[in-house]
C-alpha cells in the first residue's frame, strides 16, 4: 500500500481541511502538527503567560474544529480562520475575567481578582528587555497590542492580521507603525546592551 500512501505534508492547510471534512483523520493530524505549537504560543502570549490556560485553550480550539470541521469555508484561508477563532476565544476570556472581577462582591473595596501589585523580584527582572517588553505591552490598549503580537509573535502578514481582526489593511499598518515607534522609543535604553 506504499504506492497509495498520501503525503500530507505537500498539501496546503485548506486542502487538508477539505480532506478532513470528508472524513480523513490523518489530514487533521497534519494540521495539528502544523499549528499545535503555534496556538499554544499564541494563547500563552495573549493569556498572561499562563501556560496551563494556554494548553486548555488550545485543546478547546482543536476540539471545536474536530466537532464541526464543516464550519470552515475551504475557499478561505485556514490560518486566518484559526486565528480568528483563537482571537475570539481570548476576547471571551477577557470578558469572563472582567465580569468575574466586577462581581466578586465578597472582596473588600480596593481589592481586585487579579493581583496587579508589582513584586520586588519582578522589579529586578524588569531590567531585562523581554520583561520590559511584556510590561510595556501590557500597558498598551488591546487594539495595538493585538496587532503587535500577531505581527511579531505569531508572524502574520498585514493582510492576515486584517482578516483575523476584521479590519482593513491600512488600519493594521497604521496601528503597527504607531505601536512599533512607541515601544522602540520606550525601550531605547536597551539599545546599547543589545548592540
Amino acid at each position, binding site marked *: 500500500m506504499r504506492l497509495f500512501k498520501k503525503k500530507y505534508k505537500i498539501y496546503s492547510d485548506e486542502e487538508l481541511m477539505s480532506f478532513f471534512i470528508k472524513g*480523513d483523520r490523518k489530514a487533521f493530524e497534519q494540521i495539528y502538527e502544523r499549528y499545535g505549537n503555534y496556538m499554544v504560543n499564541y494563547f500563552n502570549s495573549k493569556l498572561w503567560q499562563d501556560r496551563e490556560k494556554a494548553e486548555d485553550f488550545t485543546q478547546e480550539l482543536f476540539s471545536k474544529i474536530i466537532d464541526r470541521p464543516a464550519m470552515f469555508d475551504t475557499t478561505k484561508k485556514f490560518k486566518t480562520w484559526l486565528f480568528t477563532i483563537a482571537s475570539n476565544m481570548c476576547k471571551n476570556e477577557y470578558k469572563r475575567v472582567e465580569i468575574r472581577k466586577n462581581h466578586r462582591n465578597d472582596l473588600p473595596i480596593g481589592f481586585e481578582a487579579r493581583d496587579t501589585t508589582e513584586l520586588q523580584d519582578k522589579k529586578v527582572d524588569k531590567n531585562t*528587555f523581554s520583561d520590559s517588553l511584556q510590561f510595556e505591552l501590557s500597558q498598551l490598549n488591546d487594539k495595538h497590542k493585538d496587532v503587535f503580537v500577531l505581527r511579531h509573535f505569531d508572524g502574520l502578514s498585514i493582510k492576515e492580521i486584517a482578516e483575523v481582526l476584521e479590519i482593513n489593511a491600512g488600519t493594521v499598518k497604521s496601528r503597527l507603525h504607531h505601536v*512599533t515607534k512607541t515601544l522602540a522609543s520606550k525601550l531605547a535604553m536597551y539599545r546599547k546592551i543589545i548592540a
Partner: protein
Amino acid sequence: MKVEHIIKTKHYFELTAEELAEVSNYASTEMEFDEMKSFLMSTEQTVNSQKISSTPELDDKVLNYLNQSYTQVVPWYNSVLLFLFPRDKQFFKYPAFQLGIASLLVLGVFNLVNFSSFNEAKIAFEDVQKIKTKEQLRIEVVEKLKQNEAEIKQMLIESELVDDEIETRPSEFAKEKHLIQDELALGKDNSSLFKDNTFSSFYGLSDDVAEEVEDLYYEELPVVEYDKKMDDDLIELEDNSEDLIEAEYESVAVVNVAQSVSVPPMQLSRKDMDSEALGNKKLERAKSIAVSESKFKSIESIKAIKQVSIQSTPELFQLFFEVK
C-alpha cells in the same frame, strides 16, 4: 514586512534612496534607525526565547478526542484519486490522463476497423427487412381480397349455373331435392355442420347452443310429399333466389363485420357464452340462418355463403379497411 526586513538586515549607510523612502516612516535619522533596528532584533530574540512547545499530554488529549470522534474509515477512493492525479507532476504525466488516452486510442482503432461498418450494415439490413415486411403484408392483404372477390364471382357464376340447370331440368332438380332431404335426414345423427368448431366458434356459439341450433335447423326443414305443384313453386322460388341470396349474404356479412369489429367471437369467455341473454341472441340469429337455409333449399348456396363468411375474419376486415 519589507521595511522590517530592511531595518534588521542593513545599516543606515547601506540604504538606497528607495529603501530610505520606505523606512522614513519608522526612522528618519540614523539614530532612530539604529533604535528601531535594536528594538526589532531584541523583540525577535525575545519571541524566539519565549517560544514554548505543546506538552505530550496536550497532544494525547487532542488526538484521543479525534479518535473518539472520528472512527470513520478513510474512503479508499482518496488514495486512488491521489494515485491517478498526483500533485507533483504535470498533467500529461498523470496516470489518469495516460490511461484515458490509451483507452481512447484502443476504442478509436476498434471503431474504425470493425465496429462502425458492421453497425451500418446491420442497421441498413434491418431497415430493409422492416420495409419488406410491411410491403409484403400489404401485398398479402390485396391478394386475399382479390382471391375473395374471385371466389364470390365464382360462387355467383355457379349459382347462375344452378339456376340454369333448374330451369332446364326442373323434374330432376325436384328429385335432387328429395335426395338432399334424405341426405340431411340421414346425416342428422352424424352431421358435423353445427358442431364444427369453425362454424360454432365463428358464430360465437357454445357446444350446447350449437346443438340447439342443429335441432332447430332440422325441425324447420319441411318434410312434404312430392307434388307436381311443388315444381312450379320451386321454379317461382328459384326465380327470386338470386336476389334473396344476395340479400342474405349482405345481411350475414354485415352482422359478421359488426361482430368482428365490436366483439371478436374467438375472444368470448365461457362465462359470456353461458349467459342467457347472449345465448338467446345467438339462438335468434342461428334460427334466422336456419330458416333462410331451409327456405332456399340449396345446400350449395348456403355453403358458399358460409364459406365467404368464415373467410371474413376480423383480422382480414381490419386489414381490408387499412388498405382502403
